[in-house]
């Protein structure tokens, strides 16, 4: 084979490869998303992707030389035309970007927005004139997402706004701002005028300085902002009119920095009135609860001995006896104590000594009682203790108390006072009322007194 023949074969091979590469590139263009069109000076379509033909409802091969303006209503086309004209009127402008909504197949405006990029291609074709490329991206999903976000922003119970480097409100992002600040026209107004001037008289000197610092931070270095922000008013009571309509606003500030300088501030106002009022309400409720507890405590606790009172007895003891009635516990018993010869102590040494005696005896009872036992000051020098257990264990408890009282050393007027205590121990019978149980215990106590005191009597058991 001659060299020439080989050269031709090589060239043919290269051409085949180029054709294949070109086919692939063209296929990529065919399958571009959205709208891709090449238009001539008369706005005839010279090339388009497959998606364009679907969007404009034309057979793909019929798109060639379709008049682009014919795809739209006159008003829509006029917007396109204006943008084509911008490229012609201002040659340095290489690309024009704009947004128009179009509709599938209807040639009308719709809520399907497209973002268009129009550019004039380099060079021109003598027969076609100027050549433009037009790319349209369907941004309806983006707009929907924006709308959803915007809906959240506008309905969020926060006031969101930005101020520019002059301190004027540039954008507002929330309808709630109107509710917060009692006005609906913000754009262009000074942030100070809208938020701080109406309550200037209420601002402290530091807060006023903080407002000045907001303005000083604008168009200044970012690192300065961080220091100044510490002084910005962050919590105000916004009350330009009637105090009952006032709002507790919490203000947060976020800088928007460009080339190291604070060019904007994003400001968020949060209405904390409800929270603060709720907190106050909670404080009041807490106080009331505390007071109620104190009242209740004083009602159920004997202030002298720290033992429960008869009032408490009603609930707890009834509950204990009820448990016994239902056989939730095997037994329940009552010990009724009475301090022997207590009246002479009071009479001879005074009530202070008497009170001290009662207090110490109560302490002994408390020391000997278990957590499940219910010790009560029944009145005067009488104590009763309800115990979940039979009369035997109750009796042992009573004996421990009695012996400890006997060992108690109480001095008054340099004299040792000897104290003893007597008790009646009764075991609760299923179905028996509290009154009846107390009555039986009282009878046993009476018997103990009668038999010489300083003893406990448990249904025929003596010590």
């Amino acid at each position, binding site marked *: 084979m001659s060299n020439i023949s080989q050269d*031709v074969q090589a*060239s043919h091979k290269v051409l085949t490869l180029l*054709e294949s590469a070109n086919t692939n590139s*063209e296929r990529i263009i065919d399958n571009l998303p959205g709208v891709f069109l090449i238009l001539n000076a008369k706005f005839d379509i*010279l090339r388009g992707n497959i998606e364009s033909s679907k969007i404009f409802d034309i057979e793909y091969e019929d798109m*060639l030389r379709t008049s682009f303006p014919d795809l739209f209503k006159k008003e829509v086309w006029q917007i396109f035309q204006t943008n084509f004209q911008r490229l012609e009127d201002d040659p340095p402008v290489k690309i024009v970007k704009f947004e128009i909504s179009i509709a599938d197949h209807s040639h009308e405006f719709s809520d399907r927005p497209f973002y268009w990029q129009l550019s004039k*291609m380099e060079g021109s074709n003598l*027969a*076609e004139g100027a050549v433009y490329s037009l790319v349209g991206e369907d941004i309806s999903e983006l707009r929907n997402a924006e709308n959803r976000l915007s809906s959240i922003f506008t309905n969020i119970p926060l006031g969101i706004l930005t101020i520019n480097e002059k301190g004027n409100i540039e954008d507002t992002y929330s309808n709630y701002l109107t509710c917060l600040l009692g006005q609906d026209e913000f754009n262009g107004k000074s942030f100070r005028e809208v938020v701080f001037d109406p309550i200037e008289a209420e601002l402290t000197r530091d807060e006023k300085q903080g407002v000045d610092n907001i303005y000083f931070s604008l168009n200044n270095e970012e690192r300065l902002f961080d220091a100044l922000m510490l002084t910005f008013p962050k919590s105000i009571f916004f009350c330009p009119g009637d105090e009952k309509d006032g709002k507790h606003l919490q203000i947060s500030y976020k800088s928007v920095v460009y080339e190291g300088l604070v060019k904007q501030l994003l400001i968020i106002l949060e209405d904390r009135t409800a929270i603060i009022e709720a907190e106050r309400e909670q404080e009041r409720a807490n106080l009331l609860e505390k007071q109620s507890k104190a009242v209740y405590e004083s009602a159920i606790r004997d202030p002298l001995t720290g033992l429960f009172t008869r009032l408490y007895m009603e609930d707890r003891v009834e509950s204990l006896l009820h448990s016994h009635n239902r056989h939730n516990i095997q037994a329940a018993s009552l010990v009724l104590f009475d301090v022997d010869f207590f009246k002479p102590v009071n009479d001879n040494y005074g009530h202070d000594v008497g009170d001290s005696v009662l207090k110490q005896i109560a302490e002994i009872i408390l020391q000997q009682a278990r957590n499940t036992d219910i010790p009560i000051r029944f009145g005067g020098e009488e104590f009763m203790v309800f115990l979940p257990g039979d009369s035997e264990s109750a009796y042992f408890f009573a004996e421990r108390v009695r012996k400890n009282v006997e060992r108690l050393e109480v001095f008054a007027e340099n004299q040792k006072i000897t104290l003893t205590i007597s008790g009646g121990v009764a075991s609760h019978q299923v179905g028996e009322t509290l009154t009846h149980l107390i009555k039986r215990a009282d009878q046993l106590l009476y018997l103990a007194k009668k038999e010489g005191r300083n003893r406990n009597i448990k249904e025929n058991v003596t010590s």
Partner: protein
Amino acid sequence: MASDENVSVIKDKLTELVRQAAETRCRAHTRQEEFTLSSVEEEYQVGQVLGNWMSLILVTGEALKITLKFHFSHKDIKQLIYPIYGEESAAGISDQQSMDFVKELSNLTAGFLEQTFESMDLSLGISLPLGTRGYYELFSDYSPASSPIIKYSDLWRLQYGDVSILGSVMFEVSNSGALNELVAYDIESADEDDGEFDFL
């Protein structure tokens, strides 16, 4: 160098020769004798994007370069060729088959031209046909010139029923003297061998 008068004749003869080559090869290739070639006198002009698709072939030598393009749509070609491929409808024809068909038409036409010039002792070579999108016409240059090389173009339409294939040709003559034999050449007789060449 040919005289001005001869140059004019050579240009006409070249134009006519390519037209005849395209028309006769098209009839043979499509098996449709009713295919006719006519000048385009409508809205189209050479240099425009004339079809979605284009088959391009080059016939070239030291004295002459002919760039021949067929501009077409697959829709038209499929409608034309599905009986040849034994299909029941145009839907049975793929884009690739359609493109191959037109590339083959380009090849046949260019081969016919090469043979014709060979008979005039003018040796030319032909490229492989290239199939691509029509909008590459945007980047082609059809500007005419008379010196140092003669450049001109031609535009015509091959029509059969509703099927239309546009052809555009760019002639670049760098040595008109080498084409003097064309002045006396009888183009009608060149067609006598119609159908005998097979360049595949």
